[in-house]
């Protein structure tokens, strides 16, 4: 069964279907059902995935543009699988959370939900693409629905934010396009298939240039310091649901691309640029956290925390140890859930009170304890509290990084302290203290909103205590990736005879 | 001798070009364009003789046809514009700008 094409097909057909529905409420329900079907299909696919089988599974390859060797090639390995899972889990949640978000938009409610489903198809495609050209197409095409979601349904400065987002991403994307074409012609294989291109570029100088082409695109997407300034604007202006998908999934394409393309296609260049990337990541971690502390707007604050977290992910990818790599991949998934929860809950708050600003809140805990409680859980996941899944990934990244790069790991660990400051200070200012007059009549979460938050909190908790199902899928894929870069983990100073590790 | 023809052709072409640039009356501009086309034709014909090949004459022939078609359309446009604007000055039609 062509699983991946089916997934995308169902989403796209659903998107078309939504536009035909004439009733907004029906359109919402229809979207929810479609996204749940996609989720169910994905889970059915994931169950059949064998972690220790072939690297790429569920592969489909068809000629697309035979003249240039472009294929419609999709398949998943462990890394792509978990990211697709993340996407399809987030979409129904976002649909449910955005129930009323699109009503104040410039375009119709149907369009919003249709865009959501289109975006879902693109997200699946971008992670599943095994043809570099196809990946590029999805990479750029993803911008379109997101651009409209920000530009038509966003906050007051949505046009500015949407254009900034688009320009940044396009700039990176064009650099990547150049690199993709150069890769094609220099490799001279007459094909864009990823597996055929691995290892074809042997010349280190060429590798470096092509690496930069890809890396800058991914660094903008991720976003890595100093390419990050589009994110706070876009995330703050986007409706909460779109912000979740933007930060939770779209940005992951950047870090995913670093792991998949930058490392495997250009191993020597990746090693050459590792110090640079690590420095950028560490700056991003600390800098993002410090700037987050100084924010007055909750959504911008969360966006900056993401800059910090993406620093961790990039650090993990380029530390090139098994645990750091697996940790980074796991981090991508967990960060999606964690930041998703934060954005959605802040969205609920903003929907109630109509303000992004921290100063407009205070003492919400007293009037809306469930909202405050879930907010705290989401916040704690953002500061990587053990017991929540983000801890596992952050711990793995830092442990793995420390094995090879002690000083960057130590500096990055400062982020742990800073995370506590930005989250708890925000929580204190919004939720604790005497109840502000303007929030006295704030209603607590309703049933729909509880259904939005519950799965996220549950996932955070379950993977916080039992991340093995994800790691079992991720670990072989990461090991495979690292072996194609031909690096091995540093040996311990004191080898301890270990059973079963 | 050939060179003389060609220089004449170049001269006429340049004069036509200058005319296009300095005149404002659309019809005169058109005439100057025709002058340039004619200058080209002269060059073609000359080259045809120089190279002993009829293709030059042939292309001149095609140029004439195209020029005729062009004149028909161009003049129709001028008439239309004149009808609404009461002017045949090319400088008056300058709304499509920054």
């Amino acid at each position, binding site marked *: 069964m062509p699983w991946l094409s089916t997934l995308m097909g169902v989403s796209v057909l659903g998107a078309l279907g939504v536009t035909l529905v004439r009733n907004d409420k029906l359109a919402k329900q229809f979207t929810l059902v479609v996204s749940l079907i996609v989720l169910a299909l994905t889970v059915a696919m994931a169950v059949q995935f064998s972690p220790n089988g072939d690297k790429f599974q569920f592969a489909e390859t068809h000629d697309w543009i035979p003249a240039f060797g472009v294929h419609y090639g999709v398949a998943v390995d462990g890394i792509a699988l978990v990211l697709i899972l993340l996407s399809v889990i987030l979409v129904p949640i976002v649909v449910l959370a955005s129930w009323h978000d699109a009503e104040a938009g410039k375009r119709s409610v149907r369009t919003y939900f249709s865009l959501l489903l289109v975006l879902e198809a693109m997200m699946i495609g971008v992670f599943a693409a095994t043809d570099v050209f196809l990946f590029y197409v999805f990479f750029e095409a993803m911008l379109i629905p997101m651009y409209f979601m920000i530009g038509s349904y966003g906050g007051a400065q949505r046009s500015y934010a949407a254009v900034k987002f688009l320009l940044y991403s396009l700039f990176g994307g064009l650099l990547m396009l150049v690199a993709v074409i150069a890769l094609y012609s220099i490799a001279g294989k007459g094909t864009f298939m990823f597996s055929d291109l691995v290892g074809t570029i042997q010349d280190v100088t060429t590798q470096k240039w092509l690496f930069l082409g890809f890396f800058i695109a991914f660094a903008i997407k991720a976003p890595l310091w100093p390419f990050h300034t589009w994110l706070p604007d876009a995330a703050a202006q986007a409706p909460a649901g779109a912000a979740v998908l933007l930060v939770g999934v779209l940005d992951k394409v950047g870090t995913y691309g670093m792991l998949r393309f930058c490392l495997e296609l250009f191993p020597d260049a990746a090693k050459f640029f590792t110090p640079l990337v690590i420095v950028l990541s560490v700056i991003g971690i600390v800098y993002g956290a410090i700037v987050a502390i100084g924010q007055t707007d909750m959504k911008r604050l969360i966006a900056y925390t993401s800059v910090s977290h993406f620093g961790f992910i990039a650090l993990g990818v380029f530390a090139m140890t098994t645990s750091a790599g697996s940790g980074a991949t796991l981090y991508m998934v967990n960060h999606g859930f964690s930041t998703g929860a934060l954005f959605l809950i802040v969205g609920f708050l903003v929907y109630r009170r109509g303000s992004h600003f921290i100063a407009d809140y205070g003492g919400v805990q007293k009037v809306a304890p469930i909202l405050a409680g879930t907010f705290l859980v989401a916040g704690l996941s953002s500061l990587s509290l053990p017991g929540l899944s983000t801890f596992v990934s952050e711990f793995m990244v830092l442990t793995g990084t420390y094995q090879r790069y002690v000083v960057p790991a130590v500096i990055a660990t400062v982020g742990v302290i800073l995370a506590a400051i930005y989250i708890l200070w925000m929580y204190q200012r919004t939720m604790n203290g005497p109840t502000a007059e303007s929030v006295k009549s704030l209603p607590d979460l309703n049933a729909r909103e509880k259904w939005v938050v519950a799965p996220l909190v549950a996932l955070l908790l379950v993977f916080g205590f039992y991340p093995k199902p994800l790691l079992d899928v991720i670990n072989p894929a990461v090991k495979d990736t690292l072996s194609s870069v031909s690096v091995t983990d540093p040996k311990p100073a004191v080898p301890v005879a270990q059973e079963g590790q | *001798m*050939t*060179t*003389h*023809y*060609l*220089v*004449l*052709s*170049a*001269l*006429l*072409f*340049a*004069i036509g*070009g*200058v*005319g296009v*640039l*300095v*005149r*404002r009356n659309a*019809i*005169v501009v*058109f*005439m100057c364009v*025709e*002058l340039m086309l*004619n200058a080209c*034709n*002269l*060059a073609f*014909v000359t080259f*045809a*003789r*120089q190279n*002993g*090949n*009829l*293709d030059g*004459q*042939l292309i*001149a*022939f*095609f140029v*004439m*046809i*195209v*020029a005729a*078609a062009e*004149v*028909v*359309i161009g*003049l*129709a446009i*001028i*008439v*239309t514009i*004149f009808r609404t604007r009461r002017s*045949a000055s090319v400088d008056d039609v300058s709304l499509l700008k920054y």
Partner: protein
Amino acid sequence: MGESITFWVLAVVSVIAALGLVFSRRAVYSALMLGVVMLSLAVLYAVQDAPFLAAVQIIVYTGAVMMLFLFVLMLVGVDSSDSLVETIRGQRFWAILGGLGFAVLLALGIGNAVVGSPKGLAAATRSGNVPSLAELIFTRHVFAFEVTSALLITAALGAMVLAHRERAEAKPTQKDLSRQRFVTFGRTGKNPAPLPGPGTYARHNAIDMPALLPDGSVSPLSVNRYIARYEESRGTLSPEVAQVLEQEEAALRAAGHSTPTVTEEVRDGGPDTEPMPDDGDSVVAGRVVRPRGESPMESLSEEDGK
């Protein structure tokens, strides 16, 4: 030798004519100059073993295209002469500089390009110029030729479409216009008949000549107010006309109208007067006599109906 003489004569003529084309103020002169150039070139073609082209040049260019130019010039206004003052800064300087440069460059380039004496077309046109050309056109270049025909048809259609003016509503018949006139008469008392001409007793039929009624007096209806105003200001208004206008004014005043006379109204140019007609409309507007309460549009449509 004969060719040289022909060339030099025609070269000088055509260059002078080309310059004349560019620098004459009147478009008609330009067109004629262009005709001269084309004819000169036709001769040059003929000299250069291209008799067919020479003929086509004369028939198509000088005959058809030039005529088209002249027709359009007539439509647009043949007697208008262009101002040669340049309005775009630097345009003329750069244009002439570019033209000179271009001429020099082309001359140099082509002068360098040509080596050796001409081969002549004797070999290529063994069966005569026209048959050889025809052979080429209908064999090797037949596709281009057919495409050209499509181009010409398209051009013809295009010209028709562009020049065609669509009527927004059905053209009023004579019956409609007649009915309209009497409706107006019923409503405002406006004379449905055509305005009186200069009349049987007029000494001449100039526009400023009012119609005379059978008793020899001036018919106020036929007095052109604009011209009357003009003549009044020049002091050449004939006493008969002045008398009629005064009488009319007095009658109006007696009827209780306190508003100024038509003459004054026109002179004042107040906000409710109709705009001064521009030159193009003067023939029509000169006839407009505007009774009180009548809009200029109505009077215009009446003029149409005449």
